[in-house]
C-alpha cells in the first residue's frame, strides 16, 4: 500500500472511513513509520484545537447572566454625535424612506385584504407576520408570491397596539384545506399543543427556527393567528374545516395576518 494521503489521515482520525478501509489503514500504520509520524502530527493538531484556553477553567456565567436578566439587557452603546449636515441629510432620507414605506405597506395591506375577500378588521392593524423563505444553502429572502417546494420558512412577528396579544399560532393551509403547523410544533397526532406565548409591543421579533414542510404544489395561505387565550391545534383545525381558502378564521377576539403564496414544484 502507498502512503496514506493527508486528507484520508484526517478522515481516519474523524472516524469517517469505512470499517474495511480503517482496517487497511491500521495494517499499513503498523508497517509504515512515516505514516505513523504523519498521523501523530495530525492527532496533535486536533488535540490542540480542542484544548481550552487555560483562563476559562472555573469560570461560572450564571451570576453574570442573572445580572443581565435582572437589569433587562446589555447596556446600549453610547450614540455617536453626527455633524449637523449629516443629520439633515439623514432626516431627509428617513422622511423619503418613511413615505415610500407607507405607500408600500398600504399597497400590500390593501392586496391582502382584497385577496382574502373580507372587510378590514381593526384589530388586524396592530399585528403582522413576516415570512422568509430559505433555500438549501441560501440566505433568507422575503416570501413574496412564490416559494419552492423544498424551501424552509422563517418568521418574525409584530405585536403592537394598546393591548397586545399574548398568544400566537402560525400555520399554513393549502387549496385542499390541509393544515401544516409551524408554531406550535405539531409532529404527532397524539399531542395537541397550544399557542405559543409572545412578547407585546414588538416589531419584527424573530422566531429563530427554520422549518420545512412538504407542501403540495399550488396556492398556500400562511396564517399568523394572534389570540388572548392559548388555543389548541385541534380547536383551530375544527374552525378551519369548511372555511373558504384564505378566509378569516371565525374567532371573535383575535387578530389575523393572512398571506398567500404559491408553492412551485
Amino acid at each position: 500500500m502507498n502512503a496514506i494521503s493527508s486528507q484520508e489521515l484526517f478522515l481516519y482520525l474523524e472516524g469517517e472511513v469505512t470499517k474495511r478501509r480503517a482496517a487497511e489503514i491500521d495494517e499499513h500504520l503498523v508497517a509504515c513509520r512515516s505514516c505513523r509520524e504523519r498521523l501523530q502530527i495530525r492527532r496533535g493538531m486536533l488535540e490542540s484545537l480542542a484544548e481550552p484556553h487555560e483562563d476559562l477553567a472555573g469560570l461560572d456565567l450564571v451570576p453574570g447572566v442573572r445580572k443581565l436578566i435582572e437589569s433587562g439587557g446589555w447596556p446600549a452603546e453610547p450614540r455617536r454625535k453626527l455633524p449637523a449636515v449629516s443629520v439633515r441629510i439623514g432626516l431627509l432620507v428617513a422622511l423619503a424612506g418613511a413615505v415610500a414605506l407607507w405607500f408600500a405597506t398600504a399597497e400590500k395591506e390593501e392586496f391582502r385584504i382584497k385577496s382574502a375577500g373580507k372587510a378590514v378588521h381593526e384589530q388586524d392593524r396592530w399585528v403582522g407576520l413576516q415570512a422568509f423563505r430559505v433555500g438549501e444553502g441560501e440566505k433568507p429572502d422575503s416570501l413574496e408570491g412564490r416559494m419552492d417546494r423544498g424551501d424552509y420558512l422563517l418568521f418574525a412577528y409584530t405585536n403592537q397596539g394598546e393591548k397586545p396579544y399574548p398568544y400566537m399560532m402560525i400555520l399554513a393551509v393549502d387549496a385542499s384545506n390541509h393544515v401544516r403547523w409551524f408554531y406550535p410544533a405539531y409532529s404527532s397526532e397524539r399531542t395537541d399543543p397550544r399557542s405559543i406565548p409572545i412578547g407585546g409591543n414588538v416589531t419584527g421579533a424573530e422566531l429563530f427556527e427554520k422549518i420545512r414542510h412538504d407542501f403540495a404544489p399550488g396556492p398556500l395561505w400562511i396564517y399568523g393567528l394572534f389570540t388572548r387565550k392559548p388555543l389548541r391545534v385541534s380547536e383551530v383545525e375544527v374552525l378551519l374545516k369548511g372555511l373558504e381558502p384564505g378566509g378569516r378564521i371565525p374567532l371573535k377576539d383575535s387578530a389575523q395576518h393572512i398571506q398567500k403564496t404559491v408553492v412551485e414544484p
Partner: protein
Amino acid sequence: MGELSDDELMLLARGGVDEAFDVLVRRHQAGLLKVAAKLLGRVDLARDAAQRAFFEVYRYLGQYQARGKFRQFLYQVLMNQCRMVGREVQRDKKLQARVAAEPAENADLPDERILARERRRELEQFLNKLSKKLRVVLVLRFAGGLSYQEIGEILELPVGTVKSRLFSGLEKLRKLMKGKSG
C-alpha cells in the same frame, strides 16, 4: 434537575423556574466559552459573548419550540453574539491596541503551563489566518465538539459542505504550521 433534557429545562424556565435556566447555563457554558474564546481570541470577550448568548436565549423562552434542537439554537445565537462582539472590538481601535499588547503574564506560571499557553496562542494565530468560513467550522467541530449534522444546522449548510470545509481547513492549518516549523 440535572437529569432533565435541555428542552425540559427550557419549558421549566419558561414556566418561571429560575433554577432550570441556571442548570442550562452551567451545562453548556464550558462549550460556549471554549468556542467563543477560539473565535474571539480573548477570555473576557468570550465571556461577554457567551453571557449575551444565554441572555438572548432567555429572552426567547416564550417562543422556544421543544424539538430537540436546543444545542443548535444556542450555538446559532452564540455565532451572532461573537459577530457582534467582534464588530464592536473592530470599531474600538483602543481596545484593539490593548489586544495586541495583551501581557504575557508568564512570570508565576509553571513551565508546562507556559508551553501550553504558547502552543495555544500559536495555534490561534494560525487559525486567524484561515478564512472565516473555514475557521468557524473547525472551531465548532473541535472546540465545541459538535457533530457535522449540528454544525450544518447551525451554519445552515449541507453536511457535505461542512465536511469539505473541515478537511480543507485542517489541511490549510497543517500547511501553515509546517511552514512555521520548517
